[in-house]
């Protein structure tokens, strides 16, 4: 399909046009925090820097989720009720790092073993990205090939050109979403596309102190036994924040929770490999020390994920793990330390 252009002033109307059929999630500001909020409840903020602290993975993979409930009141048969969320959603303003994150989660949850709960939410969600015209505070996405502009993984992609957006349609689903509102759009000119290119180049150039991510996968294994893991993890308070805010982290725990005497629900919760209980088994803990768990997290992002998933880096360079860490453990700092052996 063509590449389109939308006057900025028309975006609000476009978002509202989806509100009848979809739950529309937009960037909003709450108590000074950038968040994703529902269009009905929040005033969208369309000009903003950076991304919310929590990635949009929450919409597909919630922090706390009911999977199914079972009712054992009748001994002869157990009633099972599956909880699938088929709410139709549009999420507008997803940054390239987060688009990449969702792509990674798709690979995890929708490949050989399909996760029905993720699938239901994912299939009903339309992803609308927004490129980054400048680096954000903590981001290093350009060194991870996941920003500042997206090169895929979206239904629709917006680029802020100043008074207009360049609008790339990426999928049939994206095409369908704008089909009823085509009159709002114009066709983008070559000049518009060149402008977007220039903005991308300028954005890319503006990153400072990028970690050498491209070669990290090869170098890291040499540092398996290095003292750096102990040094870098010395202050870790085991909060789990780095995993919770990571766009690609997807580990979860299952607990059967009794709601009352008859009904129990199998709940799914986000889990964190930084906690001891994550690997605790009857006889032993395979990662008893904090340094082993930090190493695990870094290796999983940079070594294991590319190994398992055709070279796809597990880190999208969003910088949230650095931002959320109460003791400033910094993946870019760690990558920086493995430059020279």
């Amino acid at each position: 399909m063509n590449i389109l252009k939308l006057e900025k002033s028309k975006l609000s109307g476009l978002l509202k046009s989806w509100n009848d059929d979809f739950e529309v999630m937009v960037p909003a500001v709450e108590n000074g925090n950038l968040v994703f909020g529902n269009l009905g409840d929040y005033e969208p903020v369309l000009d903003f820097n950076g991304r919310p602290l929590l990635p949009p993975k929450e919409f597909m993979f919630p922090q706390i989720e009911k999977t199914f409930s079972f009712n054992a009141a009748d001994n002869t048969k157990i009633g099972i009720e599956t909880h699938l969320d088929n709410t139709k959603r549009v999420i507008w303003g997803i940054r390239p790092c987060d688009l990449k994150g969702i792509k990674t989660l798709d690979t995890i949850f929708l490949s050989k073993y399909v996760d029905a709960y993720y699938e239901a939410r994912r299939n009903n969600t339309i992803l609308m990205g927004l490129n980054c015209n400048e680096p954000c505070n903590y981001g290093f996405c350009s060194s991870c090939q996941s920003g500042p502009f997206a090169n895929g993984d979206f239904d629709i992609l917006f680029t802020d050109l100043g008074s207009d957006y360049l609008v790339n349609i990426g999928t049939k689903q994206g095409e369908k979403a704008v089909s009823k509102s085509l009159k709002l759009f114009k066709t983008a000119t070559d000049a518009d596309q060149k402008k977007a290119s220039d903005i991308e180049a300028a954005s890319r150039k503006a990153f400072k102190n990028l970690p050498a991510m491209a070669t990290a996968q090869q170098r890291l294994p040499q540092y398996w036994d290095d003292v750096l893991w102990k040094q870098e993890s010395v202050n870790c308070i085991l909060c789990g924040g780095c995993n919770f805010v990571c766009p690609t982290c997807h580990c979860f725990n299952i607990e059967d929770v009794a709601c009352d005497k008859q009904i129990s629900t199998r709940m799914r919760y986000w889990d964190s490999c930084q906690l001891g209980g994550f690997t605790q088994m009857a006889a032993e803990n395979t990662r008893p020390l904090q340094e082993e768990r930090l190493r695990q997290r870094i290796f999983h992002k940079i070594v294991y994920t590319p190994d398992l998933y055709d070279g796809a880096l597990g880190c999208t360079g969003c910088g949230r793990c650095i931002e959320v860490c109460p003791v400033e453990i910094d993946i870019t700092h760690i990558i920086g330390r493995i430059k020279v052996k």
Partner: protein
Amino acid sequence: MQKRILTTCEFCGCGCNFYLGVENERVTAIHPSPSHHVSQGRLCIKGWQGHEYIHSKERLKTPLIKQGNGFREASWDEAYELIISKFNQIKKQSGSDSIAVLASAKCTNEENYLLQKFARTVIGTNNVDHCARLCHASTVAGLATTFGSGAMTNSINEISDAEVIFVIGSNTTEQHPLIASKIIKAVKKGAKLIVADPREIQLAKIADLYMCHRPGSDVALMNGMMNYIIAEGLADEEFIKTRTEGFEEFKNAVADCTPQQASQMSGVPIDDIKRAAKTYAASKKSTIIYSMGITQHTTGVDNVMSCSNLAMLTGNIGKQSTGVNPLRGQNNVQGACDMGALPAVFSGYQAVGVDANRQKFEDAWEVKLPGKGGLTATEMMEHAASGSLKAIYIMGENPMISDPDINHTEKALKTLDFLVVQDIFLTETAKLAHVVLPGVSFAEKDGTFTSTERMVQRVRKAINPIGNSKPDWQIIVELSNKCGYKLNYASPREIMQEIARLTPSYAGISYERLENGGLCWPCPAPDHPGTPVLHKDKFTRAGGLGKFMPIKYKLPAELPDSEYPFVLTTGRIGFHYHTGTMTRKAWALDREIPTGYVEINKNDADRLSIGNNQMIKVSSRRGEISIKSRVVKTIKEGVVFIPFHFAEAAANKLTAANLDPVAKIPEYKVCAVKLERA
């Protein structure tokens, strides 16, 4: 669809804010708040995943009345009527002072204010106290004496800019993670960290100097440091001359506590004591951070006042990034104290014994009020056991796990004629009650908490009360009305209006203002911005001068001997909160540490043929427990550590109710035990 409600954390005194994401009356997400000044978008694991207890099926959903060995469900009216008739009967037979009230450091300011009001107006007694007695009573007494104000003198964020940080008796990483965050930030910027603790806590690993002193030797250690500071001419003479009094007497008191003496008494090498002293005195941005390790001793008040002495000696008080900073444990223990849930004061620390104060409250509350100070929480148990105290009304506290010598507490509570417990779970204490009233969690009510930096912040209702439970403030209002003392508040907002009217330090606080963020008391007027730094130009003490106190080292009450050769020191861990009623019901925390353990030094364990993760018996003169061993290298030989969160391996079965004579706080940090293989 998920709604997000900004609220204040219900666990520790850091006072982090986050959003509770709720959908269909259930908490389904936690969103940190990057704009919050302390939290800055960061949380500990309790903040992230510690809230599942809210939806536990064990939540109390209806009032309960004792029947046989158990309980039967009852209506609110029936429960209230029983409480009122029993209180009236006991009041008539034995007087108002035979009834006591324990308020709650977990409940809101509004609720604590109402409960002490209830005790004083309806019951007619000053027998009001709460668990601050067990944790920072030494702070309140000690700092009030030396500075005039018993609270953290500086703000949390200033810690990041300190040049020297002296942490004594605080395992900050586990107890106040977001404050440890500031300490670590300061260290990364080049600050010098000095840690003094009988256990090699996590902060010790990044400290410039770690001193492993004997439990209870804090005065010796600090006197040794101060003796050296004076001897080396490092004291701030200008500050001492212009801002303090009592220096000469203090100087004489520390004169014979040389670093050598101090080393003998504390077990810390002489050079380390000197280095600690020199480092601390060398900067004008030195701050002292302390917690239970200092306060929970028979010399708790002395320990706290030694911290004051040290700060005044070097002029490190009343300035940015300095101060004497007690880290208040509970989310609202500071507030519960501020609200007057204490036996000798009304809200704002206005003494009940001072006629003018009593007159003010009598005018406001329209009833005659008792002027004699009441019983402290620790004294309540003594009087209950002896039979002179007949009834206790407990809100949100679990003395059956948190009191010292809980075998004695159990006897005391069982001796009572009548026990009412208001809580969200049927705790070990609630199990002994005659009437149980179901209150609500922080997610089900509006109110305010006051954090350790004296910051008053909003707690916002996110879901409706579970089952037939009621917000605690509502229960007190209904009970009071049924007793004939009319209370009429449409909401906690109005309760805060009354608090502000009667409490000078809270006078400028209102829900309107709190919508824009927290306020640090003293906030004496509606346009006052709040006071992050105390004692700037003068101390809040009458006369404006800080008081040096002459303090001599005294030994702990129960020392190890041949029969009980180990020192037991108790404390907390980062995954669980106090008596575990909430955290042990969150899978993420329970999975980390599912049950109690005793830390034993490896050499001691080897000597006793105790292996790791083995069930052993630990006993004291008070009782014994079976508990798993955890062999470590991070604790001094001759010392063992047990976290007090686990009812089935209750540390407090072993501890003794040896109290500080002034603060009446128990010596949880030192008692004598023996270890045996099970």
